[in-house]
């Protein structure tokens, strides 16, 4: 057991070391793509906490992503708030919004909740257009890319990459602590057997709402970072398809797996591009084939398949 944990720690450290070296090896464009991978990974971890660990299906996380992005954009554009402050504010706002949405959603189970959240995803682009004074309507808001602070000779892309990587590591450590402790066991218990969990003294309603809030906060932080990376927000960026992309990401990456969020982020970012390289005429058909192959070959997602491979290797050597 301890040997396994040691290995895991070594892998995580090696991954962080590689991630820190990338900015000095890759072009700015590739860094921008990896920044997006990290942003997706944060959003996916948020959704995974809700869907993978707690068993509540959400088809509307694009709405929280949009809320986070617009929070950052409006704070910078209207009130000239330094961008660093907008990220925690976006997270807190989404935490509250998610918690509040979680209360009525408690009455809805499974597919009914999925539909309610789907409605949220549908409504958001139009609501954004309605508050034109704040959101800039369908024209959106144009931002400037933040540069590196004085004294650091990094390009804006390199700087944003490190900011995103830092937020990612922080949120993943927090998430891991949350999920591996008492709270995490309660969250999973509600998924596996809500009645037994209640009998054990877990306050189902409170935990479900809180999980919804935390999940929305993660996704909101990701949205805030995306507003900085893209330097533009508009309603068209947050359509229903975004929410479905998130769901695809967590299933492919691995449900109820923390590292799965990273693999999901890689998939969501790069596979549509590969599909387009293979066939310009029918990129989404190719994407579909990728999806089916992944699900057939790795029914538990990429993280699940790696875990299985690791276990087999250990047995083979042991």
């Amino acid at each position, binding site marked *: 057991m301890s040997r396994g944990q040691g290995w895991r720690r070594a892998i995580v450290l090696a991954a962080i070391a590689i991630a820190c070296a990338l900015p000095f090896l890759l072009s*700015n464009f590739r860094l921008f*793509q990896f920044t997006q991978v990290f942003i997706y990974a944060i959003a996916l971890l948020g959704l995974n906490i809700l869907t993978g660990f707690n068993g509540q299906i959400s088809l509307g996380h694009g709405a929280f992503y949009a809320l986070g992005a617009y929070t950052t954009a409006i704070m910078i554009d209207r009130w000239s708030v330094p961008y660093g402050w907008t990220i925690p504010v976006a997270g807190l706002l989404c935490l509250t919004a998610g918690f509040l949405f979680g209360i009525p959603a408690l009455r809805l189970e499974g597919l009914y909740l999925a539909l309610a959240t789907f409605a949220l995803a549908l409504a958001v682009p139009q609501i954004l*257009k309605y508050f034109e004074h704040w959101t800039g309507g369908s024209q959106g808001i144009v931002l*400037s890319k933040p540069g590196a602070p004085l004294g650091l000779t990094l390009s804006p892309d390199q700087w944003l990459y490190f900011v995103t990587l830092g937020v990612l590591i922080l949120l993943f450590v927090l998430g891991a602590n949350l999920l591996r402790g008492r709270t995490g066991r309660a969250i999973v218990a509600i998924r596996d057997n809500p009645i037994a969990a209640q009998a054990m003294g877990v306050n189902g309603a409170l935990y479900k709402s809180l999980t919804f809030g935390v999940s929305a906060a993660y996704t909101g932080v990701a949205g805030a970072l995306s507003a900085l990376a893209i330097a*533009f927000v508009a309603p068209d960026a947050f359509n229903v398809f975004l929410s479905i992309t998130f769901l695809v990401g967590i299933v492919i990456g691995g449900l109820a797996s923390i590292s799965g969020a990273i693999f999901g982020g890689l998939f969501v970012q790069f596979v549509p591009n590969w599909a387009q390289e293979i066939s310009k005429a029918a990129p989404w058909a190719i994407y579909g084939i990728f999806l089916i192959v992944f699900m057939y070959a790795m029914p538990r997602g990429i993280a699940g398949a790696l875990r299985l491979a690791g276990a087999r290797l250990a047995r083979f050597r042991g």
Partner: protein
Amino acid sequence: MTRRTIVALALVAALGPLLFAGPAGAQWPGVTPTEIKIGNTNPYSGPASAYGTIGKALTAYFKKVNDEGGINGRKINFVTLDDGYSPPKTVEMVRRLVEQDQVAFVFQTLGTPTNSAIHKYLNEQKVPHLFVATGATKWGDPRNFPWTMGWQPTYQTEGHIYAQYVLKNVPNPKIGILYQNDDYGKDYVKGLKDGLGEAGRKLIVLEQSYEVTDPTIDSQIVNLKNSGANVFYNVTIPKFAVQAIKKSHDIGWKPLHLLNNVSASVDVVLKPAGLEASRDLITALYLKDPTDPQWKNDQGMKDWLAFMQKYYPEGNTKDAFNVYAYTVAQGLVHVLKQCGNDLSRENVMRQAANIKNLSLPLLLPGIKVNTGPTDFYPIEQEQLARFDGERWALFGEVHDAGKK
């Protein structure tokens, strides 16, 4: 062989390709003696995929240019990528085109939000952002964005033309407006209001809007009729334009009906709505409608049909977007020819801003493309037309928004 000779030979071998690459080409990104690489994004998938045909028709047109020998001996390598009409994807794809594929410039990127997302980036990188495919007004701003240029007449220009027509020709106008609730609809309304002026604005008796996701606009039409309006300014996309024409005919409302150019296609809009119901509609045009019988024997239209058959046989010959793409591609070819052998980004931009009285075969007779160092609106002329039950009959003179 001495060691020195070996070193010298090795040096020549290493540096040779650099020395003999020739003077032209190497100094400009995306340009070699045999090729010009041009970048583009289009929504081949997603909610706006109906526009995807523009990208396909552009690709087909450049293939025709290449088959005919290219431009000054250079073939066009047109790299067009799908952005699904999603601004973040547009940013990623355009960065790929500029930083990785190293295109000479970006051409005809489609959509207002998508172009807004890359507007600043391309100007910072000093990459020409030519002839963007949107009717918004903000693309012709050479002072703040010297690397971006529009193409088609803006929606505001068109609104302006209708306002002038109403003020001149309708006694006691009472204007009712129906518009799509987004930047496209609002630009049209702004153009009309600006054209009416402060005093004229009181002539608007009712404004109604709809969302692009609404199933019908019947109740808006009834409201407009009840408002007593005798002028109907119809700012709708084809699906809703058909409904609006039909419904106002069915309930016996006979205002002066101004139909925006977006929905002026005879086959796509007027025939489904009913040719009798469409009689006396007024619109402003700048391109020849491929479904209008009056152009049947027009040489430009015949050439276009031959092009479609040979290079884009799966394309729809009733779709005005394919006429649009053909025309803007010809505009670009004109600019590149004018560049001669200097294909630096600066010169491409300079020549794009130096188009003088260019006529293109599928522009209406009399309509010309003009640009200048302070005029980044290539097409600013339109002509009014009235539907006579069969075809758009052009009338009056060509309106020119460029002449103030």
